[in-house]
């Protein structure tokens, strides 16, 4: 009962805060939502891996970076749009992900968590430095006219292109939900995620499922890499902040709770953009995320102690 009341009060406060900001600084909400879309659509594949394979993939953002470079090469060579290159790039990244899984992560599934963490950390460094080796640390950018599309409502004018990320994030959640509940492979994946040994007993090929899930998730993040390049310049280290942010969002939502990632992203996106709205606090926007991650982790640990 008390819990319900608390939740209601919390919801009311959130609505009030959002409404207040919306009237006062509408761009905070708009850009916050756009940023949230980007964060969520990168975090969701990582959440899938963490929820089913139970591996913290610290090379997650790096896969996106690799896909972005791949898109850059394909698009400059053939003169096509990243949205056209999106699917082939996603397929190639999925294949890379599958190979990486088979060669490295599969061998460490039984190892202590520490080893897995360091292994994916090593993967992340290898990928970043490989990009450094091949492309140097120079930033690359592709520009497209449609990115700067904007809409004016009254006196307010804002870019709309980045809403594409919100759409993708929502589609990802719906698509994954359908995949996990309606298809045989998805149901198997869900079962493996809940209890690998039990799944193996009823005849599910656990290793194949892990490989499939890993490939699917890297394919999704590869697709994000292709879209990412339309709005940002890329450099070898571009992916690593997203690894951290994704992990933070997943930790906030709770492992295995994929729709929760959307909510967590909105919180992160809006609070970051709230600080960016003022000149004095602009430089501090990056800190929001790190403070948030520590608060969430500590909060969970204290709550866990009480329960």
């Amino acid at each position, binding site marked *: 009962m008390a819990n319900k009341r608390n939740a209601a009060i919390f919801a009311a406060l959130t609505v009030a805060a959002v409404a207040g900001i919306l009237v006062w600084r509408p761009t905070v909400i708009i850009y916050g939502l756009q940023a949230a879309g980007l964060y969520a659509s990168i975090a969701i594949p990582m959440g899938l891996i963490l929820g089913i394979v139970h591996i913290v993939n610290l090379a997650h953002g790096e896969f996106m970076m690799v896909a972005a470079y791949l898109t850059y090469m394909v698009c400059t060579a053939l003169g096509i749009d990243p949205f056209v290159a999106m699917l082939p790039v996603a397929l190639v990244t999925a294949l890379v992900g599958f190979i990486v899984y088979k060669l490295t992560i599969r061998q460490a599934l039984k190892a202590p*968590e520490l*080893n897995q963490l360091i292994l994916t950390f*090593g*993967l992340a460094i*290898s990928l970043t*430095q490989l990009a450094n*080796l091949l492309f*140097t640390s120079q930033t690359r950018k592709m520009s497209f006219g449609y990115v700067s599309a904007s809409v004016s409502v009254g006196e307010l004018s804002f870019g709309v292109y980045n809403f594409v990320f919100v759409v993708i994030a929502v589609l990802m959640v719906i698509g994954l939900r359908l995949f996990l509940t309606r298809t045989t492979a998805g149901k198997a994946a869900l079962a493996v995620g809940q209890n690998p040994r039990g799944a193996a007993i009823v005849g599910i090929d656990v290793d194949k499922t892990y490989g499939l899930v890993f490939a699917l998730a890297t394919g999704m993040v590869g697709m994000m890499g292709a879209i990412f390049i339309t709005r940002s310049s890329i450099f070898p280290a571009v992916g690593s902040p997203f690894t951290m942010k994704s992990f933070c969002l997943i930790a906030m939502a709770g492992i295995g709770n994929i729709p929760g990632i959307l909510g967590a992203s909105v919180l992160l996106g809006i609070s970051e953009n709230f600080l960016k709205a003022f000149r004095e606090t602009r430089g501090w926007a990056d*800190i929001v995320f*790190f403070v948030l991650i520590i608060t969430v982790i500590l909060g969970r640990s204290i709550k866990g102690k009480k329960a």
Partner: protein
Amino acid sequence: MKLKSSYIVVAVLSVIAIAFPAFLGAYPLNVARSIMTYMALAISWDMLLRSGQISFGIAGLFGLGSYASALAVLRGGMDPMLSIVFAAAFAGLMAYALGFAILRLRSMYFSITTLALMEIFRIVMHNLHDFSGGPEGVVLPSVIFNGSSPALYWLCLAGLFLTIGVSWYFEKSKMHLALTAIRNDETSARSSGVNIFNYLLIAFVITSVLQGMMGAIQVQSYGFTTPDTAFDANFTLLPLAMALLGGIHSTIGPMAGAVLLGVASEWLKLKIPYGHLVVYGIIIILVILFMPQGLFGLARKARRERSKAGASHE
């Protein structure tokens, strides 16, 4: 007898290390200093790892130490030597305060939190324009010892010796038993009366003191620092790779790893200006997959097997 001979080896090696400036030029001494810095960080990282806690925040405490020392000299007019002690104490104090919160976390949550703390320190230093110089960082009026490279070398060596000494003490004292017990099974350690939190806090504070001290020595010998150099992720990454390659849970392993990788990276840096760190990433992957105990772990295993084979012969 065996113990004595190993003491002699240690003594000879340290005399050689102390005498290096007599027959090496400024460039090799500089390389040696950077290797020693990484070695000290690798050992200190390993010291905490012996309790099963993996920290990704070495660079955070290292950078905190550099800033504490630089700002103490610049804003407080402190003596550079004293500022190194101050920085070490400051890092320790911070670790003590933070430890109460974050040492309750385990496994990946602890690691991620240390990483996040490092980023917070960096962003704070980035944004406190008036106090820490913002993104441009701080420049000291003069380098310690007027930049004489043998003196800088000895200073760094002193920091390294202290680290090795503390790590050796950790290995030989009750700490070793307590930390190993915590790593192996926390529940059984607690039920045998090990005060887990206290031991973790001691280990965390001591390793932070050492990391902060190395940061202070670094900033005093280069005379400047910026948020991006002081909190460079390489200060987390390289020690980690070194310790893993050499063999974790020991003092000698990280030392050997640091020498191997340090010399190799100097050489690679000249050959491949961009991306030579890819070697580090690949080493980390290969070590984790094929020899999680590192070079010294392999050596130990081989020796044990040989002695077992010898025993069965008799």
